[in-house]
C-alpha cells in the first residue's frame, strides 16, 4: 500500500518533470518557431501586428527556400564554411594537443609564464584586434582568401582548446605511463603519438565540436577578410544578403537562416554524445 503510494507519487513527479521541461522548451523555441513559420510565409506578412502564430497551411509554401537555392550560392557558402571548419579543427587539434602536452609534461623554461600568456589571449576582446590582425593578414596576402579566416580562427581557438586539453591530460594520464615509454627507449614523439592522442581523444572530440561550430557563427573577422561572393562563409553571406535586400525580404532571410541551421543540427546530433564524455572530465571538473 505504502509502496504503491510512493510509486504513484513518483509517477506524478515524473509527469511534472516532463511538463516543466516541455514548457521551458516551448518558451525556448518560440523565436525559432517564428523564424521557420516566417520562412514559409509571404515576405510582407513577417512582421505584422498582431502576430500570426498559426497561419493556415494554405499560405505556407517553400517558395522562399526555392528562391534562395536558385538565386544564391547557398551550397557554395555551405561548402566554404565546411572547408573552413574542417581545416580549422584539424590545425587547431594538432597545435593545441602539442601545446597542451608541452605545458602539461615537458620541461620548458618559463613554462608557467608562457601558459599564462596564452591563456590571457582569451581575455582580450576579439574585435579590438581587428586592425593589427588585418595588417598582418594583408602582409601574408591572406585577405580575400579562405586561409586568412582559417589561420586566424585556429589561432583564436587554440588558447581555450589548450586550456581544456592540458587539464584533461594532467587529470587522466599518469606520468608513469610517459615514463614507461621513455624506459622502452621511446621519445616525446612516441608519448605524444601513442599515449596522449589516444587517451585524450574524448576531450579532443569535445573541443573539436566547439571549434567546428565557430566558423558557422563568427561574423566580424570573416566579413573583413572574405570579399568575393564565391568565397564567403554562411554568416557573411547571410549578413550580406540581408543588407543587400534592404532589410525587408524577411521571408528570404529566414529561409536562408533556417537552411543554414540544418548542417549544424546534423553535426550536433551526430557528435553530441562526445560532448558529454569529453567535457565531463578534464580541467572543468576541477
Amino acid at each position: 500500500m505504502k509502496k504503491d503510494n510512493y510509486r504513484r507519487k513518483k509517477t506524478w513527479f515524473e509527469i511534472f518533470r516532463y511538463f516543466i521541461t516541455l514548457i521551458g522548451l516551448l518558451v525556448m523555441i518560440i523565436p525559432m518557431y517564428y523564424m521557420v513559420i516566417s520562412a514559409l510565409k509571404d515576405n510582407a506578412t513577417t512582421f505584422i501586428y498582431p502576430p500570426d502564430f498559426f497561419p493556415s497551411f494554405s499560405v505556407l509554401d517553400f517558395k522562399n527556400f526555392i528562391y534562395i537555392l536558385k538565386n544564391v550560392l547557398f551550397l557554395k557558402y555551405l561548402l566554404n564554411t565546411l572547408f573552413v571548419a574542417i581545416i580549422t579543427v584539424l590545425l587547431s587539434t594538432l597545435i593545441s594537443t602539442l601545446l597542451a602536452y608541452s605545458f602539461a609534461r615537458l620541461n620548458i623554461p618559463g613554462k608557467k609564464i608562457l601558459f599564462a600568456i596564452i591563456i590571457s589571449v582569451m581575455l582580450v576582446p576579439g574585435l579590438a584586434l581587428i586592425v593589427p590582425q588585418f595588417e598582418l593578414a594583408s602582409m601574408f596576402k591572406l585577405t580575400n582568401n579562405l586561409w586568412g579566416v582559417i589561420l586566424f580562427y585556429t589561432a583564436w581557438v587554440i588558447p581555450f582548446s589548450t586550456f581544456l586539453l592540458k587539464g584533461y591530460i594532467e587529470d587522466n594520464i599518469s606520468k608513469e605511463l610517459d615514463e614507461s615509454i621513455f624506459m622502452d627507449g621511446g621519445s616525446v614523439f612516441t608519448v605524444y603519438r601513442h599515449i596522449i592522442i589516444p587517451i585524450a581523444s574524448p576531450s579532443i572530440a569535445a573541443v573539436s565540436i566547439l571549434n567546428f561550430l565557430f566558423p558557422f557563427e563568427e561574423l566580424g573577422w570573416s566579413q573583413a577578410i572574405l570579399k568575393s561572393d564565391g568565397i564567403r562563409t554562411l554568416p557573411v553571406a547571410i549578413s550580406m544578403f540581408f543588407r543587400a535586400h534592404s532589410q525587408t525580404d524577411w521571408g528570404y532571410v529566414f529561409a536562408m537562416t533556417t537552411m543554414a541551421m540544418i548542417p549544424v543540427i546534423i553535426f550536433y546530433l551526430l557528435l553530441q554524445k562526445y560532448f558529454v564524455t569529453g567535457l565531463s572530465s578534464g580541467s572543468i571538473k576541477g
Partner: protein
Amino acid sequence: MMKSAMKLEKRKRFNRADWRTWTIFLPGMLFVMLFTIYPILKMFIMSFFDWKIGFQQTSLFIGLKNYVDVLSDPIAIRAIINTFVYALVTVPLQMIIGLAVALLINGIKKFGLFFRLGYYLPVITSWVVVALLFRYIFANTGLMNYFLIDVLHLMEEPISWLSSRWSALISAMLLGVWKGIGWNMVIFLAALQAVPLNLYEAADIDGASKTQKFFYVTLPSIKGTITFALVMLAIGAFNTYTPIAILTGGNPMHQTEVVLTWMYFQTFDALNMGYSAALSMIVTGIIMLVTVLLFGLTNRKKVA
C-alpha cells in the same frame, strides 16, 4: 640499484629540453605568438599613439592621452557600466537556469535527445538571426507587447522596450540569457553525469532529502564546472556585441552602448584607433581582474 640509476638517467633525459621538446612546443607557440600575441602587443603600442590608419601616415606618440580620453569620456564609462550590468545579470541567470534544465533533463528517461536538442537550438543559431528576432519581439508593435496586452491583458499601453537605457538592456540581457541556457545545460549535464553515483547512495542511506542531496552532494561535486562556467561566461559577457548592435545600435543617444559597440564606433566611424586600443587594454585589465578574483574566491573556499 642498477635499475633506479637507469631510471634517473632516463628521467634526466626526459627533463632536459632537447630538440625534440622544442619540435613539439615551438611551432604551436610561434603560431600563437604570430597570430594573436603580436597583434595584441601592436595594439598595446597603438594605445600610446594618435594612431593613423591611413596609407603612409605617421602616427604621433601621445603618451597616456588615449587612456585619459577613455576614462574621462562619459559614454565610455557608461558603456563599461552597461557591460558590467549585462555581465552581472546574464552570467548568474543563465547558469542557474542552465543548471536547472540540466537537472530536469538528467532525470528524463525518454526523449532526452529531443529535449537536449531543443534547448541547444538557440546556441547553434547565428547571433545575427536571433538578435533580429529579438528586435521584433521587443519592438513597440512586437510579440512581447502583444503577449502583455492582448493575451495576458496585463497592460493597456505598449511599453517602448528599446527606447530607454534600462529596458533596452533588459531586452538584450533576456536575449543573452536565452541564447546561453543551452551551453550551460550541456556543460552541467556533462558535470552531473560525472558525479559518482555512490555519493547519492550514501546520501540515501543517511536519509537525505532531494534538496539536501542537491546542496550537499551535487553542488560540491560540480564546483569546478561552476567556476569554469563563471569565468567563461564573464569573458563572453564582456565581449557582447551583436545583441546590442542589432537591438538598439547603441541608441538612443549612446545610452545603451556596451564596450564593444562603442569600440566599434571609435574604430570605424571616428577612426580613433588609439582610443579603441586604450579602451580594449582597459577592458582586458578589468576582465583579468575579474577572472583572478573569481578563481581566487573559489580556491579560498576549497582551502576552508
